[in-house]
């Protein structure tokens, strides 16, 4: 075994955690697999576009949300440019969920968990659920009558499923921390993990076509040439 530059790794270096991590990482995802320049022919379909569309929307969500967070509620409610960025954030979230749901439907009907891709499916499903929490806390962080209404509807919903004591959805500070730090970090980490798993295991191939019975051969008639 050698390091990345072809130099043999000494026994002392083998005990270093950096060596262990590097060898595991490169073994699991060699560069040509991490950043491929070819995909199987069956990927040439519009249904495969919605995963990357979801990621593109997520980038806009995070970028616009960062600007909103830095400027604060008065800016996004009062200033014209603040309302514009508020609108970008909202519509990027709408596109994010729109693309993610179409991606989910596509992968469900492809059976995308086949061929050892169970973790890929699960990280995507959990990212979807965590993203719902991120959107919910976003609505609670608007600082308007809408957020108050949603908070008191949400409070009843959370209490009804027995988890109301863990969250105070009417507490702006608590919901804002969930919305701008904890849940975005969780969503981004899950999406990165999901994409790395897709790179490692590849895109799920289509279901095999149903075998068609061979055509019935006509019985040779009498007098036919032998």
């Amino acid at each position, binding site marked *: 075994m050698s390091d990345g530059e072809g130099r043999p790794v000494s026994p002392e270096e083998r005990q270093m955690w950096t060596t262990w991590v590097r060898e595991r990482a490169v073994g699991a995802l060699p560069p040509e697999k991490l950043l491929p320049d070819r995909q199987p022919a069956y990927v*040439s*379909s*519009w*249904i495969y*576009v*919605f995963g990357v569309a979801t990621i593109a929307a997520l980038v806009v969500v995070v970028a616009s949300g960062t600007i909103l967070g830095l400027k604060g509620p008065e800016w996004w409610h009062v200033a014209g440019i603040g309302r514009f960025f508020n609108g970008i954030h909202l519509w990027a979230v*709408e596109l994010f969920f*729109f693309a993610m*749901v*179409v991606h989910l*439907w*596509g992968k469900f009907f492809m059976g995308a968990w086949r061929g050892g891709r169970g973790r890929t499916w699960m990280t995507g499903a959990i990212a979807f659920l965590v993203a719902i929490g991120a959107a919910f806390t976003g609505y609670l962080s608007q600082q308007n009558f809408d957020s108050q209404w949603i908070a008191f509807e949400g409070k009843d919903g959370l209490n009804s499923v027995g988890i109301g004591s863990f969250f105070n959805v009417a507490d702006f500070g608590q919901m804002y921390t969930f919305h701008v730090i904890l849940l975005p970090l969780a969503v981004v980490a899950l999406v990165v993990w999901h994409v790395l798993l897709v790179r490692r295991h590849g895109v799920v191939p289509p279901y095999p076509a149903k075998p068609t019975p061979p055509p019935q051969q006509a019985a040779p008639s009498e007098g036919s040439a032998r």
Partner: protein
Amino acid sequence: MVSAALFDLSHPAHYLHWHFFQMSVANVVVILLMIAVFVAAILIPFPKRRRES
């Protein structure tokens, strides 16, 4: 300005209600759009890359 919005948002949302099913018209429209895009993504052929000469 709200008055400059494409739709007048200064009223309660319209809802569809049929037996147990109740959903805002806006959500129904979004779901129908997602179904339409899903079907279109399957049916519309993906453009093929031209072969390099």
